[in-house]
């Protein structure tokens, strides 16, 4: 935490001294909690990436003497115990554990906290003009539940039987019957960890919703909120209503394993499909939880880079609301092949395709936002526009799998893997990189290095596409997901060179992230000092000092006069106009 300490030196003198522990560890300041989440989730992002690298190695170089593939020992595999890697060869059960933990850690402990734990905490009070969250202590508890949950998840690698290996979707009965999976304690730790994390998210969601509803500064009407805050608001509602259903299901799984109830065990009359319904009823809103906040950040950053108001602000808001709402009635598209009633499949197909409408609204409005702009190509802007370019691919590949008959050959193949990674890495992660590079100066009072940032962006963009685009073709070629050894099947083995190519690209993609890591820590200490408003942006956070002190604006009373995107307004003295600027003589926009 010493890094945080340095960054907050400037904040310290404006306030009475708070003891170190209260200030940086058990802090109730929403900004410190946001930064704590940032360090935690970046750590898990690294762990999740490492797991992926191990998987990719196995996929590229499996040993299959029958098919003439020699295999190569996993680098560093000798450090792992015999239960994971035996004689340099990764065991299939360990591969399955990697698949499971990569998915779980990335979704629940990297992307979710990076989007929500970090930015909802950091941005909401700053963007709505509040001194802190509605429930600061609840906020602290939220972080201090997420942390042990993550440790528990990691610890499950070390227990007898290994970590959970039934996939991040934990389909019953594989997940609940150790006699089939070989995993006892690992799966239980997985369930408990997610229940605890769910609690943490729930506390966060209650806090975010109450704060946004109740604590906006005078003049900050709903339609003057930055789209980041709007997206985080809808995301919080989705979290609030989806997480408890998952928690209920997880607890039932836990009971099935520990006390021997029969919820998901067919022998007792329980239903494996019921778990899938509960999981995806949570899981599909979860997918939007993982993308909506990034959409919000991207809207903020694009408008800032293009020096233009967001195109169709109201439509953008309603599209977020629409995605959030339709997201509740599409979960069955994950279950097209599950043996669910085919009539239901037809229903879910139509609702799923409808999601394309709000997604298209957002995409075209982003295009409209950069159209006619005066674009500044700063690193956050490059990440944000990459988000748009890659989200389009993720959205379009979604149309294939949304169409139920086309999903028949594509379901559970690498096409789906490509689709989810275009949305979650090409979409969410680029949005996150955009957000980190954009708000870093506000968080730590120093600028990140621009040239390094651009190199990182370019390499990430190139290697991301080289890694994930070929997966589409592997999938339509019939390569199943979660496959320990693709060379077992002749129709996949013929494309092994593609798998090797993907692995090399993935290694380079992973390596490129060290540039970001270096830039992040170097800038933390050595970066150029940031001014209050380095990007010349409009929203309220840019009126507070960088970094803002505890309480954000001190005794200053904020009043909001306009929306957050009044860039290049005629009559204004600069090409931006702060929301707090009374600016006499500048005509108010006709609509919101």
């Amino acid at each position, binding site marked *: 935490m010493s890094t945080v300490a340095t960054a907050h030196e400037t904040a310290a003198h404006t306030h009475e001294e708070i003891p170190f522990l209260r200030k940086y560890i058990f802090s109730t300041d929403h900004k410190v909690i946001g930064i704590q989440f940032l360090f935690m989730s970046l750590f898990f992002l690294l762990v999740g990436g490492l797991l992926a690298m191990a998987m990719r190695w196995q996929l590229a170089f499996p040993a299959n003497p029958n098919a003439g593939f020699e295999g190569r020992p996993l680098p560093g595999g000798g450090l792992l115990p015999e239960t994971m890697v035996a004689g340099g060869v990764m065991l299939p059960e360990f591969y399955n554990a990697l698949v499971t933990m990569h998915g779980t850690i990335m979704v629940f402990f990297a992307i979710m906290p990076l989007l929500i734990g970090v930015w909802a905490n950091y941005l909401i009070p700053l963007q709505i003009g509040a001194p802190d969250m509605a429930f600061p202590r609840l906020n602290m508890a939220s972080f201090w539940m997420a942390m042990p949950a993550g440790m528990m998840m990691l610890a499950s690698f070390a227990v007898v039987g290994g970590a959970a290996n039934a996939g991040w979707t934990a389909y019953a009965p594989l997940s609940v019957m150790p006699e089939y999976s070989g995993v006892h304690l690992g799966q239980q730790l997985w369930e408990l960890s997610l229940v605890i994390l769910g609690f943490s998210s729930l506390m966060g969601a209650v806090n975010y919703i109450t704060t946004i509803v109740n604590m906006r500064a*005078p*003049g900050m*009407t709903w339609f003057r909120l930055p789209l980041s805050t709007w997206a985080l608001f809808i995301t919080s509602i989705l979290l609030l*209503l989806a997480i408890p*259903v998952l928690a209920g299901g997880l607890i039932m799984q836990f009971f099935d394993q520990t006390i021997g109830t029969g919820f998901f065990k067919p022998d007792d009359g329980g239903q494996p*499909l*019921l778990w899938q*319904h509960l999981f995806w*009823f949570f899981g599909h809103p979860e997918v939007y939880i993982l993308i909506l906040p990034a959409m919000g950040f991207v809207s903020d950053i694009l408008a800032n880079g293009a020096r233009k108001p967001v195109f169709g602000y109201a439509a953008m808001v309603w599209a977020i609301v629409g995605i959030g709402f339709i997201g*509740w*009635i599409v979960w*069955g598209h994950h279950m097209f092949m599950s043996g*669910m*009633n085919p009539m*239901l499949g037809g229903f879910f197909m139509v609702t799923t395709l409808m999601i394309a409408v709000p997604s298209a609204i957002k995409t075209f409005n982003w295009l409209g936002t950069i159209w006619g702009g005066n674009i500044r190509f700063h690193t956050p802007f490059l990440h944000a526009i990459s988000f748009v370019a890659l989200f389009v691919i993720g959205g379009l590949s979604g149309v294939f799998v949304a169409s139920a008959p086309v999903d028949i050959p594509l379901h559970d193949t690498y096409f789906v893997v490509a689709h989810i990674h275009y949305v979650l890495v090409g979409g969410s992660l680029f949005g996150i990189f955009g957000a980190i590079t954009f708000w870093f100066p506000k968080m730590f009072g120093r600028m990140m290095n621009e040239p390094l940032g651009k190199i990182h962006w370019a390499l990430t963009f190139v290697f991301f596409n080289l890694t994930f685009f070929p997966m589409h073709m592997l999938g339509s070629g019939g390569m199943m997901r979660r496959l320990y050894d693709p060379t077992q099947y002749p129709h996949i083995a013929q494309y092994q060179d593609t798998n090797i190519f993907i692995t090399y690209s993935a290694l380079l993609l992973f390596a490129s992230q060290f540039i970001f890591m270096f830039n992040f820590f170097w800038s933390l200490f050595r970066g150029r000092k940031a001014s209050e408003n380095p990007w010349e942006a409009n929203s309220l956070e840019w009126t507070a000092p960088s970094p803002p002190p505890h309480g954000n604006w001190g005794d200053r009373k904020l009043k909001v006069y306009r929306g957050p995107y009044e860039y290049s307004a005629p009559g204004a003295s600069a090409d931006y106009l702060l929301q707090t600027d009374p600016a006499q003589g500048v005509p108010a926009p006709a609509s919101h």
Partner: protein
Amino acid sequence: MTEPIDGAAAHPSPNYILIWVVLAVLTAGEVAIAFVSHLPQVALILILVGLAIWKAVLVALYYMHLKFEPQRLKIIALAPLPLAVILVVIVLSEHW
């Protein structure tokens, strides 16, 4: 923008004891209907669920003061109900 906060004295005090009596009578009625009457199964279920919802609504409206809250809070309070119905009805429809 700033409206008066819903103050302690802002709403009338309903007759809590009367509500309590109604709840107790409805509970007794439910048990009676379930065990004494000889209605067909479907009618029985409909009546019992109807009575349970009636009781739940009484608690929400009076004990939880929803009746005296701003319209916005009422809407928020009802928000998850459609989702609850969607989940149960769609999963149930598999068995028809």
